[in-house]
């Protein structure tokens, strides 16, 4: 056991072992009472600091464009404009004229605007972060920058920080840093997304307790469990050191006895597409469309959705992209859609239930965008409907596809009807899998929701966490039932829950007959490697034993240690 364990949110299912380097961009301002200020000198220092900061921003912009992507780099263009803002310059000069040292004048000049932006909503509030980032950079240059240069931390460092901004992460070299942990931030924070796209071990949102971890301490960052282990024991050190990741496999994979399994990536934002391709994914097994609808005041247009889907299809020009139609409700809220307050949102109006009724216009727009993209994008588009419980719902969704086709005919726009599928997440869908499969081309099992509903165990409730495990025989039998009924109807079956991305379960899933496994891009190399080391005939026998087991522990004991 480690001396102490801190809990946060894991950003990548990877572990790293290293030595703590604290990163603290805060600087101490001089006390204006204590210093004699020469206005001209301070003005010159300010001008020189702006110059230096600008050169840094340009260098970091280039490094980010190169390492991560042009979209991520664009934030630096905004920072350069904030840096050179005439309002700031005037306010700093006024401050200096009033007798302040340049650093204090800069702090005051930015402070007022940071407060102003902090008081605004959503997108505007994020600008406060940009201003803070620019201010801290200027102050560091002015006070002679004693902060750690993140680009030059020793190999094997684990960086700990209050938070990491785009300017900070731009300097991190993923080849030398062993991982990082931050006090603030959630799964969608800039730092978490950055870690995910580079497969860097990271835990965010640890809270103020992180301050107790001393510089130079040996720690394990476990992005899988979302923990930071201080003073890890021998086993924990070895496990983390062994998790160096496996080589990316770009080719399609099959088992040792020639059974092909597609290994695809789950994608929730456009910037994850290139990362998925870089990690060797064959295609996209779950393209979530909610990002198009979040952080804005009104729904996206048909053209905007069309462009986003075309981008995905062009990234995987030889592969398949499975798009899930809008899946809101439950825990996913969108302000302008006026979602009802429900006693049990997970058992309420969500997924296809909303798309068929209150949101039928949104659904029609989305279907038209998808069908146009199917004709124009390079890859093969597949579309699936979330949270289907009944054949009636599926038939209504298929009718909506026909209406969208008729609308596009009327408009004389080019379109194609994509291959269609159903997500299997409800017990009802499992029981009528044969009826559903007879009406579509494929089924895709969403194991997070399927486990929650089969086991009647809230996935967010830790008190029933033991029940929320897809290795319970009840869940394994539901999966196998779905596969058998679908194959009998010549439909293929994929899986896009977290279970699909666990390399320890790959043999079991191949044995249960899944044709496709789709996961967070980080683990695609591990899963591809597992598939190519699996013997299909042996895997099928083991999987039969697992699902016929009476208990979870008996099922677990059939799973080969990897």
């Amino acid at each position, binding site marked *: 056991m480690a001396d102490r364990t801190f809990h946060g949110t894991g950003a990548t299912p990877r572990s790293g072992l290293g030595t703590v380097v604290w990163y603290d961009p805060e600087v101490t301002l001089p006390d204006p009472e204590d210093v004699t200020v020469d206005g001209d000198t301070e003005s010159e220092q300010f001008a020189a600091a702006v110059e230096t900061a600008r050169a840094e921003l340009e260098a970091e912009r280039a490094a980010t*464009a190169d390492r991560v992507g042009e979209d991520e*780099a664009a*934030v630096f263009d*905004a920072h350069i*404009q904030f840096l*050179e*803002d005439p309002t700031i310059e005037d306010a700093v000069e006024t401050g200096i004229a009033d007798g302040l040292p340049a650093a204090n004048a800069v702090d005051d000049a930015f402070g007022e*605007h940071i407060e102003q932006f902090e008081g605004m909503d959503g*997108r505007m509030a994020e600008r406060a972060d940009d*201003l803070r980032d620019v201010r801290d950079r200027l102050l560091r240059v002015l006070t002679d920058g004693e902060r750690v240069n993140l680009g030059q931390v020793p190999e094997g460092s684990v960086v700990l920080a209050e938070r990491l901004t785009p300017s900070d992460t731009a300097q991190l070299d993923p080849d030398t840093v062993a991982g990082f942990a931050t006090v603030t931030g959630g799964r969608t924070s800039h730092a978490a997304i950055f870690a995910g796209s580079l497969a860097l071990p990271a835990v965010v949102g640890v809270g103020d307790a992180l301050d107790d971890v001393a510089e130079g301490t040996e720690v394990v960052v476990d992005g899988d469990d979302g923990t930071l282990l201080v003073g890890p024991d021998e086993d924990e050190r070895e496990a983390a050191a062994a998790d160096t990741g496996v080589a990316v496999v770009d080719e399609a994979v099959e088992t040792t006895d020639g059974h092909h399994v597609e290994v695809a990536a789950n994608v929730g934002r456009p910037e994850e597409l290139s990362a998925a391709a870089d990690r060797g994914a064959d295609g996209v097994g779950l393209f979530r469309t909610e990002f198009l609808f979040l952080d804005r005041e009104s729904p996206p247009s048909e053209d905007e959705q069309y462009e986003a889907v075309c981008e995905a299809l062009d990234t995987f020009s030889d592969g398949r992209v499975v798009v899930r139609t809008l899946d809101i409700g439950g825990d996913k809220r969108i302000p302008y859609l006026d979602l009802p307050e429900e006693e049990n949102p997970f058992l309420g109006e969500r997924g296809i239930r909303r798309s068929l009724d209150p949101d039928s216009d949104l659904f029609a727009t989305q279907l038209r965008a998808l069908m146009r993209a199917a004709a124009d994008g390079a890859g093969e588009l597949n579309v699936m409907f979330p949270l289907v419980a009944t054949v009636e719902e599926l038939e209504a969704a298929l009718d909506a596809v026909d209406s969208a086709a008729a609308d596009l005919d009327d408009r004389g726009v080019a379109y194609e009807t994509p291959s269609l599928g159903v997500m299997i997440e409800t017990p009802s869908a499992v029981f009528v899998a044969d009826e559903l499969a007879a009406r579509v081309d494929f089924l895709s099992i969403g194991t997070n929701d399927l486990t929650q509903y089969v086991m009647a165990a809230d996935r967010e409730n830790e008190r029933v966490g033991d029940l929320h495990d897809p290795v319970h025989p009840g869940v394994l039998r539901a999966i196998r039932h779905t596969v058998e009924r679908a194959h009998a109807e010549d439909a293929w079956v994929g899986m896009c829950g977290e279970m699909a991305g666990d390399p320890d379960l790959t043999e079991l899933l191949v044995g249960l007959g899944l044709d496709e496994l789709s996961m967070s891009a980080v683990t695609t190399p591990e899963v591809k490697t597992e598939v190519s080391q699996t013997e299909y005939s042996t895997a099928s026998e083991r999987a039969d034993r697992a699902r016929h087991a009476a208990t979870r522990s008996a099922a677990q004991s059939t799973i080969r240690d990897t």
Partner: protein
Amino acid sequence: MSVERTVTIVPEAGLHARPAAAFVEAVNDYEAEVTAGQPGDDLVQAGSMIAVTSLGVGEGDELRLVADGPDAEAVLDELEDILTTPEEELSA
């Protein structure tokens, strides 16, 4: 002699981030004083990223631009171009 123009914003990010950076950079490239604001509101200094960002102008909103100086027409032409180009086509 000042010239003015009203433009409807095309980039989906509105006048934020990348489009805003391009907008402010263009203003400062020309010999002209430019102010901007939503029709009916006060105008702010268009060469200030902070001022432009705090206008909170979104996709589909109208923006009134007023320019004064030797490059007044030229700067308005370029600004109109930036404000009517979808973000993904905007070169950085």
